[in-house]
């Protein structure tokens, strides 16, 4: 793996920045949420305390602490936003809650709902009675049997009045009351201020009635009777003197609440039954659209999972949920919920209203969580963009740095690769060695290594010459001693040993001579004089000589017809040729041919000496010309020190040329090519 790749992988760790940003954003969101919770809880507590101090503003009847009991005929009065049409249908009431069954059912079923709008109380009753029993004329509810709905009103002054609704024909009717006529007879008379609409349906009939608010105190009782049977449902004032209470929004409480709350918050006050007493404000922030727009792709990366939050339950008359329950039990409580409509995040907080030591109700606040989300998103998107930018910058910087590093290392590597050239020369200077860092140190290490290698190579190169010189004196002592010994007049058997010793010294002599050859060539190169001479002629003469000198080898010479003048030292060139031919003779099989060929090419002479011997292994091509490089296994008795081809190289380079070892194109044998420049 390249350093660049490795560093890029390391650079991936900078992704920890955005990750940390996400973590931070989450923590931020949690912290914001916590603070919003406590702020809202504090608000709820404050409002609850304020309201607790003025119970008369909160409750219609602050002294009535009995809980709401539908079984006793208690009713919640829904607040309508506008007056409905009296038509027997409650669709225009706009109340999500269904009518509730009347209590004390006895073979009859009916449901009712009570609401108020402006100065009227509205009553809606639906009775399941498929048989319509019309009211006869001059009917009396205690005497006659007909379908009838009784209504007992307790007036604001505490007096109670009985009314009943019945009709001979469905449609607009008025309530009737029983009055004592002058004749002592009770008579039903219409009360025109209480209007109603009797609507006959397939399942029974609906009654929608309108009662002036001034008629209505704090209680009313509803009863429904079947005209053709004994079916009856509901309670009257006699059966339930404590029942029939009306629970409703407290007048003026809405505006009072409105003074407590800020925009984006909805406050609701409930009594101990969780029934709404007043509400103000609106939490539907304009953030819905904004958050839609600001939805960022990374939001799902960072947002806290809200799917486990409970759904807000919704009822028009009462509040539900953990917060309200806890508050009514006396504990302030805040909770995050999801809105019923579009899952938006809501914060709810409820605080109990404690009056005289008992919890009488609660203040419930709702706030949209979107604002928070927006706040967080703004901070986070900033942070996120910044960290992404930082990561990108880090990547680019890392990449650049890695590229620079690997370039430097590559330069060093290339230099190290080529430090020892194919001709054995050692380059001592390395790139980057001036740098102060580790790469510089490495380069300097290379330089030291190469310097030592160079010393060693130099030593090896001169070793032959030195050895040849140093051994010459002792060898001479041995030889001259042998000479003297021989002259002393030896016996024949002694003479054998002297002859053998002399043979040995002779061989030693030739070894030393071969060892010193390169040094002597270097010596003679220093003193060589350049002349212009015809290379072709030299080749022809030389080949003639080789034919005499190596009678067992075949020589072929190919030269251009015209003279090939070069500038050089003919003796050295002849010596170069000697070495090449000696080498070729050594490797050429007995019947093989040694071909010497001279060509002109691109400003140079190409002198090629090839033989039919075995090809040169590719690994050796560059090394054959090195000093003391010898691969051949003794095929003859002559000593080989790998100096012949080194001399070839010395001479070729001295003439501004080069020497290359290769194999013949036909693979048939070795090919040595010497390049010598034209004049």
């Amino acid at each position, binding site marked *: 793996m390249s350093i660049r790749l490795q560093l890029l992988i390391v650079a991936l760790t900078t992704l920890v920045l955005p990750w940390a940003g996400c973590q931070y954003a989450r923590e931020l969101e949690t912290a914001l949420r916590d603070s919003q919770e406590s702020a809202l809880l504090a608000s709820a507590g404050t409002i609850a305390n304020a309201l607790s101090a003025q119970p008369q503003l909160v409750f219609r009847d602050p002294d009535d602490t009995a809980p709401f009991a539908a079984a006793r005929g208690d009713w919640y009065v829904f607040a309508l936003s506008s007056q409905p049409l009296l038509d027997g249908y409650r669709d225009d009431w706009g109340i999500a809650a269904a009518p509730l069954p009347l209590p004390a059912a006895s073979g009859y079923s009916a449901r009712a709902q009570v609401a108020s709008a402006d100065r009227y109380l509205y009553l809606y009753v639906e009775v399941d009675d498929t048989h319509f029993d019309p009211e006869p004329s001059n009917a009396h509810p205690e005497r006659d049997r007909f379908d009838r709905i009784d209504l007992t009103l307790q007036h604001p002054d505490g007096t109670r009045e009985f009314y009943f609704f019945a009709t001979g024909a469905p449609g607009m009717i008025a309530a009737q009351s029983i009055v004592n006529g002058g004749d002592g007879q009770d008579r039903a008379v219409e009360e025109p201020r209480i209007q109603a609409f009797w609507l006959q349906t397939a399942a029974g009939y609906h009654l929608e009635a309108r009662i002036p608010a001034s008629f209505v105190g704090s209680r009313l009782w509803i009863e429904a009777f079947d005209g053709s049977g004994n079916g009856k449902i509901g309670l009257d004032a006699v059966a339930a003197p404590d029942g029939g209470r009306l629970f409703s929004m407290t007048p003026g409480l809405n505006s009072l609440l409105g003074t407590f709350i800020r925009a984006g918050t909805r406050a609701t006050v409930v009594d101990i039954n969780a029934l709404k007493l007043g509400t103000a404000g609106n939490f539907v922030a304009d953030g819905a659209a904004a958050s839609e727009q600001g939805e960022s792709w990374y939001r799902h990366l960072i947002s806290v999972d809200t799917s486990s939050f409970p759904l807000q339950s919704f009822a028009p008359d009462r509040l539900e949920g953990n917060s309200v329950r806890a508050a009514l039990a006396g504990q302030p409580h805040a909770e995050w919920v999801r809105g019923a409509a579009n899952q938006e995040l809501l914060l709810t907080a409820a605080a109990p209203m404690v009056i005289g030591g008992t919890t009488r109700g609660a203040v419930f606040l709702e706030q949209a969580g979107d604002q928070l989300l927006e706040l967080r998103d703004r901070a986070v998107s900033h942070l996120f963009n910044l960290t992404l930018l930082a990561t990108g910058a880090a990547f680019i910087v890392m990449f650049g740095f890695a590229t620079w590093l690997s370039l430097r290392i590559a330069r060093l590597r290339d230099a190290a690769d080529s430090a020892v050239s194919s001709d054995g020369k050692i380059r001592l200077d390395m790139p980057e060695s001036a740098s102060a860092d580790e790469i510089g140190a490495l380069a300097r290490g290379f330089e030291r290594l190469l310097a030592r290698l160079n010393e060693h190579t130099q030593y090896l190169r001169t070793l032959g010459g030195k050895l040849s010189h140093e051994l010459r004196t002792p060898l001479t*002592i041995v030889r*001259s001693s042998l*000479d003297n010994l021989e002259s002393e007049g030896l016996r024949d058997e002694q003479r054998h040993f002297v002859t053998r010793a002399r043979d040995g010294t002779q061989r030693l002599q030739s070894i030393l001579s071969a060892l010193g050859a390169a040094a002597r060539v270097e010596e003679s190169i220093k003193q060589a004089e350049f002349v212009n001479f015809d290379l072709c002629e030299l080749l022809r003469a030389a080949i*003639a000589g080789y034919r005499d000198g190596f009678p067992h080898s075949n020589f072929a010479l190919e030269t251009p017809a015209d003279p090939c003048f070069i500038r050089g030292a003919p003796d050295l060139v002849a010596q170069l040729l000697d070495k090449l031919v000696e080498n070729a003779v050594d490797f050429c099989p007995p019947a093989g041919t040694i071909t010497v060929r001279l060509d002109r090419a691109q400003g140079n002479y190409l002198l090629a000496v090839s033989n039919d011997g075995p090809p040169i292994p590719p690994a050796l091509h560059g090394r054959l010309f090195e000093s003391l490089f010898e691969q051949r296994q003794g095929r003859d008795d002559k000593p080989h020190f790998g100096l012949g081809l080194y001399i070839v190289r010395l001479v070729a380079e001295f003439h501004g040329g080069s020497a290359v070892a290769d194999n013949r194109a036909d693979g048939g044998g070795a090919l040595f090519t010497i390049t010598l420049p034209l004049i």
Partner: protein
Amino acid sequence: MVAMPSAIIPSMKKLIAVVEDEPALRENYAAALARHGYSVKTYANRKTAMQAFQNHLPDLAIIDISLEDEAEGGFDLCRDLRAMSAELPIIFLTARDSELDAVSGLRLGADDFLTKDVSLPHLAARVAALFRRIDALRRPDNAAEIVRRGALSIDGEKMQTTWDGKPVTLSLTEFWIVHALARNPGHVKNRQQLMDAANVVLDDNTITSHIKRMRRKFQQIDPKFDAIQTVYGMGYRWVE
């Protein structure tokens, strides 16, 4: 071909001084020369040799170039000796081929030089030849041994060479090389043949540099000299 007597018995024992710092070699040379009938005195360094020479000059001096701690002490000794006597034959013994060049210029006045590879019989022959040359110079001219090739004239007896009548100062080795070449003009002599003729064991390079130097010496007399021709790969020949 000049006869090569392995030894000559002089009427009076000639005194040969051997200056050589290597004791074993010194004694070997001394023993061999003594065997050939010379009286030999040996010296290990320049100082002792010089002291002896100031009292009594030898008939011939064999001097090693590097003497003990003086790398070129032999050169100095040769110069001093030549200053004392112009005729005294001096032979240099060299351990290094590179020294040959310096010595063989004969600027120092040496009469011959040999590498230490030379065998003792060769050395003795060389010494004898030098004495012979001196003797011949003292005798009246004897034309029998004179070889003439054009402008070249070689006196085999006195071992002297002239070109156009002017003497060419050749060392003994060079003399024998020229002699071998000029005796059979046109014949190629390879390096081994030349070495045999000169009674030396030299490598190819040294022969080459000898030839080069000889040409230069002739060219000093006659710039157009090109009678010694190189036959590459084979050797040399004399062209008339």
